[in-house]
């Protein structure tokens, strides 16, 4: 029997954008056990809810994560709106949907780039980030911020997108989709990519369900969970269907994200077509008194904001369950059996976002 050794992976590692530590127990080059540990960048943002007014906390919620920032603000705002019984105008809902999907686009393109870098395909990495830059430009033009949008607030949105800009976005979507399809073609059909990813880190449907996986990680294993199906914001009107793959390996998780890029472009197009006229926000009066579980589909999966108000202008408690935390059990099951050289690719395949996880 070969000798077992323990190799530390992270918290600082070239493929990891953020610090997560995994102790890998190896037999020769093969991983037999993986023990994760987190807790390197805890910032105590949940506690801040007791020190900031409930309308101000949107800005804090947005800074929980630099990539899914808009969705955190959206999830928090929806929770407070539900507690206070506020009905958001339709135009605000559509604008929220457009910005959510733009965030998903840039997050997935960022991940595809990092993933390509993780498997050693530098050229593809550069190409993905080049496409991501055009999404960031649209976000900056419409909100004023590239990654921190700052447009969502309790009761609606802070900015409008003019009809001229909407038309311009609509026109640029077609060439952009073609570029994305060229890029996705490489991820889905290139032999070297397939050779590297297929059959790696396989998790079946039942096991993924039992481990409580969310987002593209679960959908890559054939579990059709997507919170957008519940119809928050304008998703109910747009007719949304989740992207599901069944193989359960790294290639399937990559394919889900590539196809979600296409789906997001389609959703933005339909949201622009169906954009209603009307006000952007409603006046917020009073203070939240009650509790609510707010759920939103982020690029990495389902995020839950539990909010409890006690009738004062400060909320009493906020608890945030982020998708990466739900996906770490999947990661622990995926790693055993993989070669040491494949570990970076497997770790990246759940799209770990540690600053979300540790708040």
């Amino acid at each position: 029997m070969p000798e077992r050794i323990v190799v530390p992976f992270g918290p600082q590692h070239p493929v990891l954008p953020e610090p997560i530590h995994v102790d890998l127990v190896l037999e020769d080059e093969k991983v037999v056990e993986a023990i994760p540990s987190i807790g390197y960048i805890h910032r105590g943002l949940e506690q801040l809810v007791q020190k900031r007014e409930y309308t101000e906390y949107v800005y804090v919620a947005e800074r929980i994560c630099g990539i899914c920032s808009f969705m955190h603000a959206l999830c928090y705002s929806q929770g407070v709106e539900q507690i206070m019984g506020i009905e958001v105008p339709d135009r605000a809902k559509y604008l929220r949907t457009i910005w959510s999907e733009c965030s998903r686009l840039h997050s997935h393109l960022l991940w595809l780039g990092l993933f390509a870098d993780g498997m050693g395909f530098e050229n593809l990495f550069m190409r993905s980030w080049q496409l991501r830059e055009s999404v960031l430009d649209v976000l900056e033009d419409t909100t004023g911020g590239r990654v921190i949008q700052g447009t969502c607030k309790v009761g609606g949105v802070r900015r409008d997108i003019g009809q001229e800009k909407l038309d311009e976005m609509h026109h640029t979507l077609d060439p952009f989709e073609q570029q994305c399809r060229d890029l996705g073609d490489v991820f889905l059909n290139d032999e070297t990519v397939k050779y590297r990813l297929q059959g790696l880190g396989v998790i079946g449907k039942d096991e993924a369900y039992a481990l409580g996986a969310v987002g593209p990680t679960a959908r890559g294993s054939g579990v059709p969970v997507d919170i957008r199906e519940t119809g928050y914001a304008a998703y109910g009107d747009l007719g949304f269907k989740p992207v599901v793959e069944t193989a359960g390996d790294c290639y399937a998780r990559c394919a889900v994200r590539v196809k979600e890029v296409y789906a997001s472009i389609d959703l933005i197009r339909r949201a622009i077509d169906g954009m209603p006229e009307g006000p952007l926000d409603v006046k917020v009066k009073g203070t939240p008194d009650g509790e609510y579980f707010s759920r939103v589909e982020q690029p990495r999966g389902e995020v839950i904001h539990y909010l409890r108000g006690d009738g004062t202008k400060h909320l009493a408690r906020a608890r945030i369950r982020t998708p990466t935390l739900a996906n770490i059990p999947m990661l622990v099951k995926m790693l055993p059996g993989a070669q040491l050289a494949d570990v970076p690719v497997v770790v990246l395949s759940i799209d770990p976002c540690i600053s979300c996880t540790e708040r």
Partner: protein
Amino acid sequence: MGIFQMTKTVLRNLAGGPVTRQYPAVPARTCPLTRGHVTIDPATCRSCGLCSRRCPCEAIRIEKEEKVWEIDRMRCIACGDCVEGCPFGSLTMEQEYLPPVVEHVVERHTITYVKPEKPEKKPKEESAGESA
């Protein structure tokens, strides 16, 4: 299918020149909505203090008696909430990003607004608006 999926893109990139902006030579991209930094017009500020109360990160401080408006650039997150809330239009959001700061340096502005002489009509209302 095959191993040459990327070839088309590679050839296009070879012929296309650099994609990145040559930053110091070419100025950084901004747009009218870009949130760079907050500036104040001391001539119109009436020291109402709404900006300091709305600020989510307590970057703005205002002293009514000494007529001083202060901002800590290290705390400011450039969310633009103060600009939206200013009833007199004294605050504006400029597009230029300021150079990074490494310590808390408070930027002080002396408010030069002088209340216009208008003794006959509604003196009470005006002073009430000022302290709001």
